[in-house]
């Protein structure tokens, strides 16, 4: 039933792209790309633990990503080598996750599905979870939009204006963990960071306000997942990587056009 799984895949792809777009902007503005990557890698450990103890992969991924992101946020400012620490923590958890999964006997587990996603296998339950995630992230980002922007520009200015930067930062951390978790089925833990950063980076060259950048990023993200999905079907290529390739193409085209015609960057 072609229609069926393609429809489900489309719904899942659109959902994850939408959730990733506004958050991706913050990741880019705050130079959190590496932070996001480490958070995503930590999800692999969560997956392994949830497979071992047989509970929801989604819950496991969110939990471990959140622990990872929160402890790194806690260390921020206290440690001088945050960058190194992120590398250590992120890669250790993905390695540990892969090792633990190999111990699980009985069920044969397709690791690639977790690393680069398996969008064609999403269930109705997955779609529901993805859209719940979209809902949470959208409400969080829209509700906290102004303070989030202010904290992104200067935590001191935000403090002086009566906001609590720690609270706003946690909103970002929480959203990041949710995006990573719901994105696993679609693009996997290795590529979810691409879906966060590339649409936002592409939108930068045409956007003139933070809001328009978020909206354009969302449009690019959705187009990428639609085109990528169809390309994958047409050429029989892996879906997650195909989606990311299309997004990169958007980035390449928009940035080139911008450099040659507007010189805005």
């Amino acid at each position, binding site marked *: 039933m072609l229609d069926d799984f393609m429809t489900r895949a489309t719904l899942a792809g659109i959902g994850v792209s939408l959730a990733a777009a506004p958050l991706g902007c913050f990741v880019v503005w705050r130079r959190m790309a590496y932070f996001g990557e480490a958070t995503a890698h930590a999800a692999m450990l969560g997956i392994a633990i949830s497979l071992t103890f047989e509970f929801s992969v989604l819950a496991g991924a969110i939990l471990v990503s959140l622990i990872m992101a929160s402890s790194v946020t806690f260390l921020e400012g206290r440690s001088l080598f945050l960058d190194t620490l992120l590398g250590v923590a992120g890669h250790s958890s993905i390695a540990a996750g892969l090792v633990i999964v190999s111990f699980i006997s009985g069920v044969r587990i397709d690791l690639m599905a977790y690393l680069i996603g398996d969008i064609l296998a999403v269930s109705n339950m997955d779609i529901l979870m993805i859209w719940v995630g979209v809902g949470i992230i959208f409400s969080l980002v829209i509700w906290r939009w102004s303070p989030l922007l202010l904290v992104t520009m200067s935590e*001191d200015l935000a403090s002086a*204006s009566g906001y609590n930067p720690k609270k706003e930062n946690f909103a970002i951390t929480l959203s990041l963990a949710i995006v990573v978790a719901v994105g696993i089925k679609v693009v996997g833990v290795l590529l979810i960071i691409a879906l966060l950063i590339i649409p936002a980076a592409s939108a930068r060259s045409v*956007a003139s306000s933070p809001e328009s950048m978020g909206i354009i990023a969302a449009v690019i993200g959705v187009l990428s997942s639609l085109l990528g999905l169809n390309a994958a079907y047409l050429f029989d290529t892996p879906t997650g990587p195909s989606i990311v390739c299309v997004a990169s193409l958007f980035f390449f085209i928009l940035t080139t056009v911008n450099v040659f015609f507007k010189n805005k960057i």
Partner: protein
Amino acid sequence: MLIKISSLDVKYGYKTVLKNMNLTLDSGEIVTIVGPNGSGKTTLFKAIIGAIPISKGKIYTKPNLRIGYVPQQLKIDQTLPITVERFLKLAHKNFNRSLDKIEALLGSKDLLNIQVNNLSGGQMQRVLLARALINNPEILLLDEATRGLDQPGVASFYRKIENIRNSTNCAILMISHDLHVVMSSSNRVICVNGHICCEGAPESVATSPEYKALFGSDVDGTFALYRHHHDHKHDSKIER
């Protein structure tokens, strides 16, 4: 009384940055803080706005104190597109952010549509000051706000600050590295070096041995060379 700081200590890790700070600030006062690099001036500001935890002592602020904060600098990532207008409208919780008011504070509307990232140093300083004034602050914190301005720029900036004080009676606490211009306009000068070295009226501070020990005797020149040791004594000799 707007702010009362009593026996405040601030530590970064194990390093004590501020020790036993005492400071009171009333409406309409202009107080200037001077001190060498790394002496804890900015840290004091961060403690006042609540951006860093304090390890000892107390900072009392008047309930619902409206603070206007002008940071030393503002670096926004190149990837964040935001116009001056949007930036200023983002300023504070629940406040009148009408375009007319913003224009009046900026002095013109020619900056409104410029991207914050493309502002020059002087323009940025105007924008940051306008931003700090949007909520009719009762106290204005200026952290080396004259950095990057030429001499006429500094002079007119200080005139502006004095006018603001005179018309709104807000208190002004400013950090300065520019010694002789500050001298003329402030009620009190506090010389900080991890602790309060000396304080008082500008003239008395300028002639005090502690101040000279910290900045050298040539206080009204443009060069105030100093040797600074963390365990300095106030009678230490100055090598120039």
